[in-house]
């Protein structure tokens, strides 16, 4: 009996491994192996097409003094602060708006209005914004219309406005995906809780602050983590809109600097070092958030 039972479990194990094996192999070949290779190359001078030479921590010492990387990191913090302050909360406002719509039909329509733009590829969105900022674009036309022609400038060329112009891309900052996450969270709040708040005389703002926000805290945290990941890793918008992170280093971000070092200058080792620093920063942030969440859950303060 025992032997049969053991062999049964063993057989299940084999079958289980066989099912996941293709995925695991592909993961190793396309995700873990390149990452491990890049980790090794971060400690080597490796010009693309050449032979790697071990340089120890030299890249990291250079990086800490590299004015381009430092400027990029500062820009990244500004972009991150903006994304967390605006990009995280505007979808919540939209979700609240939909949640409070009077009828299901209106809720459906509003959801569709916010979600449909998700089908537009981001590259198209960025190209549209490049047009908006051009001398023949909407911003110029609007300022001329309202008699403020003297305010017109090269929004992406002017060192004073380039980073701000980049942040403003995506206005009104209501992305479909976070809005849906928030809406799902709001929809999951028990009717009895909402009724209790109403009976206790909570205003709309009061209910938002004391009922909705605490109940959708997991969604806020999830989106905060995703926002940080997206902003730290992303450089495509900068690349499309300004080409090189200019003028000067006004719109440079570490991701773009990594790309330029790797593919424009062929310095794969240095690019790997930049990638490793970004990886460590993201890992530290994610672990920090997880630890915070675990602590909060253990204290029984937050929803589990």
């Amino acid at each position, binding site marked *: 009996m025992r032997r049969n039972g053991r062999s049964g479990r063993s057989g299940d194990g084999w079958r289980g*491994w066989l099912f996941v*094996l293709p995925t695991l192999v592909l993961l190793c*070949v396309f995700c873990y192996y390149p990452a491990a290779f890049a980790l090794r190359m971060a400690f080597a001078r490796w010009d693309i097409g050449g032979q790697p030479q071990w340089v120890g921590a030299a890249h990291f010492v250079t990086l800490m003094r590299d004015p381009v990387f430092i400027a990029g990191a500062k820009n990244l913090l500004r972009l991150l602060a903006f994304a967390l302050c605006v990009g995280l909360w505007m979808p919540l406002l939209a979700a609240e708006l939909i949640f409070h719509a009077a009828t299901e039909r209106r809720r459906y329509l509003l959801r569709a209005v916010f979600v449909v733009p998700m089908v537009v590829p981001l590259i198209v969105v960025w190209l549209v914004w*490049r047009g908006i900022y051009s*001398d023949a674009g909407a911003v110029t036309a609007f300022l001329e219309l309202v008699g403020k022609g003297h305010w017109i400038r090269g929004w992406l060329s*002017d060192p004073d406005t380039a980073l701000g112009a980049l942040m403003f891309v995506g206005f009104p900052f209501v992305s479909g995906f976070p809005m849906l996450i928030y809406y799902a969270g709001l929809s999951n709040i028990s009717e009895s809780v909402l009724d209790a708040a109403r009976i206790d005389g909570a205003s709309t703002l009061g209910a938002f602050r004391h009922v909705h926000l605490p109940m959708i805290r997991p969604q806020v945290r999830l989106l905060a983590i995703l926002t940080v990941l997206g902003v730290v890793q992303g450089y495509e918008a900068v690349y499309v809109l300004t080409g090189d992170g200019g003028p000067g280093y006004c719109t440079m971000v570490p991701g773009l600097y990594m790309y330029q070092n790797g593919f424009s200058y062929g310095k794969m080792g240095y690019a790997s070092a930049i990638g490793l620093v970004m990886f460590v920063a993201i890992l530290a942030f994610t672990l920090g958030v997880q630890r915070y969440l675990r602590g909060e859950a253990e204290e029984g303060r937050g929803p589990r």
Partner: protein
Amino acid sequence: MSTRLFWLFLVLVTAVGAVVRAAGGGVPAAGEPHPEPTVAPARHLIEITPGIYRPGNVPQSVGEPLRAFRDIADEYERLHPGVSVRFRQAPAVAGGGEGDWLRTQLAGGIAPEIVQINTEVVWQDLDKGWWVNLEPYLAQPNPYVPGNEVWWDCFADIALTKAKRGPDGNLYCIPMDIVETGIFYNKDVFASLGLSPPADWEEFIRIQKTLKDAGYIPLVVNGFTVVCDWTQDIIFDQLFYEILDQIDLEKGSRDEEAYLRGYLAPKELCYLIKRGFFGPDNPRYREVWRIIRDWRPYWSHELANTDMDRLFLTQRGAMYWSGSWFIRRMKNDPYLDFDWGIFYVPPITKATSPYACGAESAVIGGAGNQYSVTNRAVLDGELDIVIDFLRFLTTPESAERLVGEAQMFFPNVKGARMDPELAAFADIFRHRYCTVKWLYSLSQEFNDTHRRWIMYFVNGGFGLDEFLALSDSYMQQAADYYIDKHGYDFSEYDRVMAERGLSGGGR
């Protein structure tokens, strides 16, 4: 059992990794010789990224899709059964970064056999063995041109072609055509304001002021190409032309000198940078940037990668500094409703700067589409057939058909006729070539750095002193890198400089 399974899994992953690595092929590392092809494949496949001439492409978004290159390839395939010519589209990359994509392809040994790319990008990676030196083949006859003894003789502008030789003295590209820049202007707007094309720089600036006062964008320019590349080269030439004989330290070969007379080669440029000729203390060099900064108010506000064509076509801009390629748009745009003309950048006189030479402005164009052969041709054992196809492409019939169809450039092949619409640009091209091409002379990193700080400077990020101090710093670094990379010895230049009584600074 589970431990055994885990180890089994690891062995499997390692095996798959090894297979994948082996399948990647043996790409020779830098300095290693290319492996000799062993067995010629039964069928020959030539892959090309043809640039603007890609079949199906609609340049400038007007006119019929191009098909000449496909027709020429079909003809070649008929002549050589077993050969297939396939066209690939290289990704369009912002900021002239087409080399980014290509480097990954070359490193993996999977680049197309023939690629269209500025040969200056090729020069950056000559030490990696990715590119085929075409000199030995150019010394042989082109069998498709009756009576031809050496392929060199097939080119219309041999001096220009030889001037594309890299720092090691070898040619790595076939310059198919010639491109030149010029200033398109709206004749209707000019007539309404009583303006005509300028004779000198001072008049040019006055015209721009008039246009600005009338509510037009006086001159539409693209920041990446026009401001950071062309503008710098032309104004630098105007201000340094008078002392060119003194600072030109090494003559090129007789062939090249016909085209590049007095041109500062990278080695000369490095030497002059290290001797402080282009630093903040050189008043002549300061003037270059003072003139550029003073010119800025007359350009479009936005310089970063916007649709400059549209500003001119919709008549918001009265002048547009573009190139011969824009002729196609101007000739074929069905919505164009104004008369237009072309003139070239007028000379700067001493009324603007005491260092101005007042001579006819130099040109900054030259070779347009340049076809280079990659290591893939060697690895696949297709080099001979690839070279043969390029020879077929450089017959007068092929070149005229290919270049003429696009209506953007003039052919660099002897006997191939130019589209008469491009005559104005052919006239401009007869000017002498500029003193130096600042971008493309040193490293890609220098190009990017210089470009970003020029943009910062012209857009008011900092003043002239700060810009010159900063540019001197990164120019010194770029020169050091280049000198180290090529192992330059400057003792001969020091001797020449001493003979000429120049101590540095170019004053």
